[in-house]
């Protein structure tokens, strides 16, 4: 990165890159302040490795750097299940700091401040060929990335008061941008299976994905995510990110989730509707959380049976039991693509092409959900067994 960000502006108006460079510098200052590294002599008062969490994520060596233990405990701990040592340099590096821990502010924002109405999280986005800056007005999360270089910086005002939406998808934008540059598509889907092979659970928020994914985990199936996975389109592999799932109070009751598995922060309002809490998957169903699954089919859970002659309960569940039925590839694409694409922000055309390729290669199904979570999980389990 250029030592003097002003130089970048002088050679061209790449303001996103200039801001990224400035935020990188602020991270180094924050790390120095928190971990006692002298930026001049670069000597450390803590052992080497302090402030880093090395992961194997989506088959890549990823290094998370943090300035302050509060960030690791409150934001990054859901990635610890992917901890893995690696030789050499990481392919992706994400550096996170907060002002409360370090006293370091991010660079002055050069955009007009945006008012965030309650329950909304408008995002300011500045992109260039080299870099991208995303500033969320609601959660006040700031992400700057240089995807080609595999580097991103993340900032929050206070690591001891992280908004629920950010904790539910820690450093999601940074991961999305960096992973996309390495051919991994952050897909709005859960993934469950057996023996390394499974299905993507797709559908917009509120469609029942998380409840179904956790029902499957409780039935002893393997799970790599309830809401977002990293999809490698060529190998049809879904990779895990964080070890937490997001569940509404109603679903937590239905699944009899023990309180030990529910995040102490409890149920908090979400942007998309009912209050949800974070659920720790390993505590809920030990040994079910896996790093990856090879995807053999797409399953779209539906709350309202669309077939004639069935009885749907008031909440849209089919009293006749779950029913798995094949749907067309186009219907599968309609279930998985829009919410993945509209939330990705960048590279929409390429993402849609990758998902279209997916639905051409594996069959799609709709699952009319029943009120019995175990029966729904059994229907998915049966499909996974059938697909081999």
């Amino acid at each position, binding site marked *: 990165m250029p030592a003097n960000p002003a130089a970048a502006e002088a050679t061209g*108006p790449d*303001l996103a890159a200039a801001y990224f460079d400035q935020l990188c510098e602020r991270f180094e200052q924050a790390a120095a302040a928190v971990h006692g590294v002298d930026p001049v002599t670069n000597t450390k008062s803590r052992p080497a490795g302090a402030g880093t969490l090395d992961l194997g994520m989506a088959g890549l060596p990823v290094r998370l750097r943090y300035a302050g233990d509060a960030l690791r405990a409150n934001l990054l701990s859901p990635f610890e299940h992917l901890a893995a040592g690696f030789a050499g340099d990481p392919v992706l590096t994400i550096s996170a700091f907060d002002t409360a821990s370090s006293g370091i502010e991010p660079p*002055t*924002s*050069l*955009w*007009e*401040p*945006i008012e965030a109405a309650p*329950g*909304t*999280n*408008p*995002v*300011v*986005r*500045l*992109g260039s060929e080299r870099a991208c800056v995303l500033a*969320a007005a609601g959660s006040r999360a700031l992400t700057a990335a240089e995807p080609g270089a595999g580097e991103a910086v993340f900032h929050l005002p206070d690591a001891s008061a992280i908004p629920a939406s950010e904790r539910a998808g820690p450093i999601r934008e940074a991961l999305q941008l960096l992973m996309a540059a390495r051919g991994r598509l952050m897909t709005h889907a859960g993934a469950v299976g057996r023996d390394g092979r499974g299905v993507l659970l797709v559908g*917009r928020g509120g469609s029942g994905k998380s409840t179904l994914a956790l029902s499957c985990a409780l039935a002893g199936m393997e799970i790599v995510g309830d809401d977002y996975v990293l999809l490698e389109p060529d190998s049809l592999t879904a990779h895990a990110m964080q070890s937490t799932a997001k569940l509404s109070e109603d679903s937590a009751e239905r699944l009899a989730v023990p309180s030990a598995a529910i995040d102490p922060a409890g149920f908090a309002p979400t*942007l*998309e509707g009912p209050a949800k809490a974070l659920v720790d998957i390993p505590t809920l169903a030990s040994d079910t959380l896996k790093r990856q699954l090879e995807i053999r089919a797409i399953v779209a859970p539906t709350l309202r049976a669309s077939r004639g002659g069935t009885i749907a309960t008031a909440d849209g569940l089919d009293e006749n039991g779950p029913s798995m039925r094949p749907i*067309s*590839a*186009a219907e599968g*694409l*309609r279930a998985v*693509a*829009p*919410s993945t*694409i*509209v*939330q990705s*922000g960048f590279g*929409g*055309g390429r993402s*849609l*092409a990758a*998902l*279209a390729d997916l*639905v*051409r290669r594996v069959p799609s199904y709709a699952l009319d959900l029943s009120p019995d979570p175990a029966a729904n999980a059994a229907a998915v389990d049966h499909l996974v067994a059938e697909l081999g």
Partner: protein
Amino acid sequence: MPEHFRIGPGIVHETVDGEVIAIDLDNGSYYSLAGSGPLVWELLAQGASETELREALEARFGGVETIAEDIAALIQQLRENGLVIEAEPAEGAVVVAPASGEGEAYEAPRFERYTDMKDYFLLDPIHEVDTAGWPRPAA
């Protein structure tokens, strides 16, 4: 009436199983085109004029009286939703009607619009910042 069109800005699309799925990245609406809709879409994207489209479909499905009316109605829906916009005739564009299938029956274009992604946009609107408005000091 304009004669030539191109796919609108911010629209991404794929054809799967004879159905076009198009997503408007600017507002989250998404669309499905079926029946003869994907054929019309393909020819429009190639730069076919409305007249050329009509001729191509009439040659392929001869004897169907509603073709002109169906095409006009579909183009109107596509334009109203920003899926296609008016364009200059593409230079050197050659319109080739896809090969005719023997005994292939004509199906009127089917157009569906889905707006269930709207919430994502209302809740998390994205404000693009560009260099023209930069730098604007924060208050």
